[in-house]
């Protein structure tokens, strides 16, 4: 195909957006590869052939053109040439900047497993949170998911079994921080971003037991339940029979806990969502699994909850977690037994079993490398001696 002038500069497209009476500028953005300002200016200069008639104005242009070079999504494997190029008139900004605004680096109160700002924002969007929605996170932790939920206008409730976490009395997570600041709390986090008015409350409670009024409906549930690896998956309980507690110990008593297995957590969560979500509204949660055992039909399921989103985040060679979005489609709630597939799913055991193998593998591989280096050095030494 012969390339004519109109292929390079399709005038019918350009005329629609360029006007000799309007000033303009070109902005260069690159994805997954960094360029210096000088290199970016060179890229802009390449556009000098375009018949844009207006004056250049870098501060307050009437029209902004955006040029984007896309270098894929794998930061460890960036190609020489961009995979794709985009050029067009700028219409509106997205909200990617929010990732920087909400970064955990500057968050007052964080815990060991606080959700990264970008993922929290994605979760709030998946849950379609809109101004005035009532949102609950039943495994709230340090409340990172609620920060993004409140940003999009949600009014937030949180619950967690961990008394010390909700009262910000756990050991500080930040490197170098010895004691927690007095102001640290989930409410404090919302105040930090100027959305403190959307804080309703947080409660210390055990998700395996009923707490909320039967007929209350939430507009969204977003949560990251404990996987039993970095945070324990627990509920109140004791293995011993006939346990009693004397009245003098009742105040400030911290109850013992037993394992709250993942299958139980997720079947409780789906049952809760079926009961407490309004029709059409969503539950968004993470689900950990061993990658090569993944089968979509074995994900937690419930007849009232339709799976509408399912994406993988790889955690290690063997493990991943999936961001699941369920939409409530029916109010006709059957009495659900525990998920039949769930019983086999014990992520914690598998996680550590997988870890065992890879630890042994790593040791063996290192031993091999050391042996190789030793024999190489030996050969070298012999060569030198000969000379």
């Amino acid at each position: 195909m012969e390339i004519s002038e109109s292929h390079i500069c399709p005038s019918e497209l350009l005329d629609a957006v360029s006007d000799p009476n309007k000033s303009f500028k070109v902005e260069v953005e690159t994805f997954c590869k960094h360029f210096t300002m000088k290199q970016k200016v060179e890229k802009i200069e390449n556009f000098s052939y375009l018949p844009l008639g207006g004056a250049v104005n870098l501060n307050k242009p009437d029209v902004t053109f955006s040029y984007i070079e896309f270098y894929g999504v794998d930061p460890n494997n960036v190609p020489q040439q961009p995979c794709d190029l985009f050029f067009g008139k700028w219409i509106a900004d997205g909200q990617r900047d929010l990732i920087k605004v909400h970064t955990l680096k500057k968050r007052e109160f964080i815990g060991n497993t606080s959700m990264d700002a970008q993922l929290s924002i994605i979760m709030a969007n998946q849950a379609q949170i809109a101004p005035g929605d009532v949102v609950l996170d039943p495994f709230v932790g340090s409340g990172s998911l609620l920060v993004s939920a409140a940003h999009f206008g949600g009014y937030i409730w949180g619950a967690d079994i961990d008394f010390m976490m909700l009262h910000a009395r756990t050991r500080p997570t930040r490197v170098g921080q010895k004691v927690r600041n007095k102001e640290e709390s989930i409410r404090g986090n919302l105040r930090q971003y100027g959305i403190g008015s959307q804080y309703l409350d947080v409660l210390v409670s055990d998700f395996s037991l009923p707490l909320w009024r039967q007929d209350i409906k939430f507009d969204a549930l977003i949560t990251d339940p404990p996987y039993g690896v970095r945070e324990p998956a627990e509920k109140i309980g004791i293995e011993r029979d006939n346990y009693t507690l004397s009245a003098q110990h009742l105040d400030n008593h911290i109850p013992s806990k037993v394992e709250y297995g993942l299958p139980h957590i997720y079947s409780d969560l789906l049952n809760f969502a079926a009961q407490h979500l309004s029709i059409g509204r969503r539950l968004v949660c993470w689900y950990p699994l061993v990658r090569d055992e993944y089968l979509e039909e074995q994900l937690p399921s419930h007849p009232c909850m339709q799976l509408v989103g399912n994406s993988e985040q790889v955690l290690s060679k063997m493990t991943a977690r999936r961001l699941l979005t369920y939409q409530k489609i029916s109010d006709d709630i059957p009495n659900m037994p525990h998920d039949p597939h769930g019983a086999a799913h014990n992520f914690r055991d598998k996680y550590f079993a997988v870890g065992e193998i890879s630890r042994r593998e790593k040791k063996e591989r290192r031993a091999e490398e050391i042996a190789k280096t030793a024999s190489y050095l030996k050969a070298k030494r012999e060569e030198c001696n000969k000379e």
Partner: protein
Amino acid sequence: MKLITHNMLTSKCLKGVVTGYPLSINATNINITEVDYNPEFITRIIPKLDWEVLWRAADSIGHSDGLPQTIEPKFEENNEFLKKAHRVLLEVDIEEGNLVCPESGRRFPISKGIPNMLLTEAEVQ
């Protein structure tokens, strides 16, 4: 703890308790925290509330001043009413005290504004 939260909580977790609603409130320290007024939110939340329970709860802690005992049919057009509801629901904040189960008398302490609804291991056996 705000009264909007109180309106949603039960003590059904306790063995032998049937409804566990409404919990009564013993407050030893109440704060008034200023919250931005959002009439759309208040209008939206009122149908979800048990208004009688809210009124009694507010009355029991001395904050029912000017709050009507029943909701009028066109409450969403009455800005005065919405402002009062806003104050009682979101600004009256119980800092220290107890929630008490109406059937068993079991107390759930509220400390630093956070209710502790946990049972003991003996109670879940």
